């Protein structure tokens, strides 16, 4: 009934973290060196990859760690972008204050969404968050006097000293590295473990004394904070915002990046963002039907690596280790 652990099983805990650490170092080196080796336009793409990786990681907190797939974090991201751009362009305020206000607004919106969504699960959670995201999109589209409607808003977010692609990239790189470390600490914390418990069995969590609704609320709001950070960085990157920034496609894209990289892996979001944004840009050079190609690639990944690229690699390695 209680056999002794096999040598392979005993070896797993020390082997996998070491490999994980090596992969993180390699990934960091890649993003540190890559801009030095590519043309200016591709530095811009790499910057976008880093920003969207943060959005995908915030999706992963809910989809991968808590077992609730959100379709509204793109809208939360966009709220932050709108507020940041509005503050700098219409109000003429400082970009850094604008970014702080953007993150604050995103947090507030996420907290309100959380109150409405935390008691639902599965497809109901998915549809409710989709509807909440659509409300934001509708407001941004119709509240023309503030949001500029379909024309959007052009901002003055990026300071002159960061106008060039290279210095801006490295500022984003450092910011994303810090954010990623914070998110990693978050998912590895005692609270992060409670989220994985909720993902596996919320009824058991309740019987152990956990207030599942409260934990869900905190997780949703924290995911909103990080989506807001990504949105504020995006405001500085793009200096422009329109309803497409808060549209459903934004949320779906964040989710696809998380899934492609591997939900529940956190760092997989970088692989997912790199794969999807890289493909978008590479394929669109050759064909206008790049979305069809992207769709086919996504189907391919779902069939052959349902756990995503990083998830697939982890499974493969675990199998090889016996």
């Amino acid at each position: 009934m209680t056999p002794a652990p096999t040598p392979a099983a005993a070896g797993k805990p020390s082997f996998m973290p070491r490999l994980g650490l090596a992969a993180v170092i390699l990934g960091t080196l890649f993003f540190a060196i890559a801009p030095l080796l590519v043309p200016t336009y591709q530095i811009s793409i790499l910057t976008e990859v880093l920003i969207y990786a943060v959005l995908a990681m915030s999706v992963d907190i809910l989809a991968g760690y808590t077992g609730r797939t959100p379709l509204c974090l793109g809208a939360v991201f966009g709220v932050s972008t709108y507020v940041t751009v509005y503050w700098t362009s219409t109000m003429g305020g400082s970009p850094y204050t604008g970014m702080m206000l953007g993150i604050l607004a995103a947090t507030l919106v996420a907290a309100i969404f959380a109150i409405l969504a935390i008691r639902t699960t599965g497809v109901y959670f998915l549809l409710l968050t989709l509807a909440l995201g659509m409300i934001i999109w509708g407001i941004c589209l119709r509240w023309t006097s503030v949001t500029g409607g379909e024309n959007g808003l052009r901002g003055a977010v990026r300071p002159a000293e960061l106008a060039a692609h290279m210095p801006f990239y490295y500022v984003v790189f450092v910011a994303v590295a810090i954010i990623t470390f914070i998110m990693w600490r978050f998912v590895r914390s005692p609270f992060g473990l409670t989220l994985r418990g909720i993902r596996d069995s919320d009824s058991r969590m309740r019987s152990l004394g956990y207030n599942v609704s409260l934990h869900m609320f905190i997780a949703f709001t924290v995911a909103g904070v990080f989506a807001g950070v990504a949105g504020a960085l995006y405001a500085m990157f793009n200096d422009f915002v329109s309803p497409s920034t808060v549209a459903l496609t934004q949320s779906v894209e964040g989710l696809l990046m998380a899934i492609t990289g591997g939900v529940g892996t956190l760092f997989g979001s970088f692989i997912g963002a790199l794969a999807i944004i890289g493909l978008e840009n590479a394929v669109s050079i050759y064909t206008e039907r790049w979305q069809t190609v992207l769709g086919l690639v996504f189907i391919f990944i779902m069939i052959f690596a349902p756990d995503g690229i990083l998830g697939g690699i982890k499974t493969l390695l675990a199998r090889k280790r016996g």
Partner: protein
Amino acid sequence: MTDFLQLDTVTVQFGALKAVDSVSIRVREGERRAIIGPNGAGKTTLFNAITGVVSATSGRILFKGEDVTRAPVHERAKRGMSRTFQITNLFPNLTVSENMRLALRGLSPRKFSLFGSSDLSAEEAARADGALEISRLHSRRETVVKEMSYGEQRQLEMAMALVAQPKLLLLDEPAAGLSPAERVIVSDIIRALPRDLTLVLIEHDMDLVLSLVDYVTVLNNGKLLVEAPPSEIRVNKDVQDVYLGKARHDA
């Protein structure tokens, strides 16, 4: 000894069906009580009502003298109730150690630590080790639960219920689906539980259950049939009728 758990005419109704019908039970502190009855007698529903998984339609549930009838599940757990489930309800994608951490921290403010270390403190580790030792799972700490046998998962259910240091432990068919050898292990684990722990147990294995408890409550069709010590239950005609069927018993 005082009444530790008190059920006053508790009814649980699903539509027209009364799964539990005006059941009153008093369990004293430190007592070991079995709730038995044929399938569909309402045993698990009664457990669910005691722990708050389902709401009592009417009646009152008092725990340590306080009315908990409308308290949510996590509130009852905070007051010292812990339970296992008839169908194993663990965290299958987590390791034994992580399952134990979740069980340990259910009542600790550390569960809200957003950026702290997830490692166990010395006191927590000692408690986890103790519960795993009693449940004979100390060599399986790093095993992912879904890779364990059913018997081991039942043992882990017990370990998780124990590590929370409950005042009242409710075990829902702890030996269900186990081999004879595994049943012996489970009964040994239950016997080794601290004597001051109040225990309520649902179990179909009569030999096992009657050897473990001080007092037995028999339910039939949601109603309380009889309450008596194990020695009387063994020879009670009504209980034999319920378990064996009246006609067969008469024959």
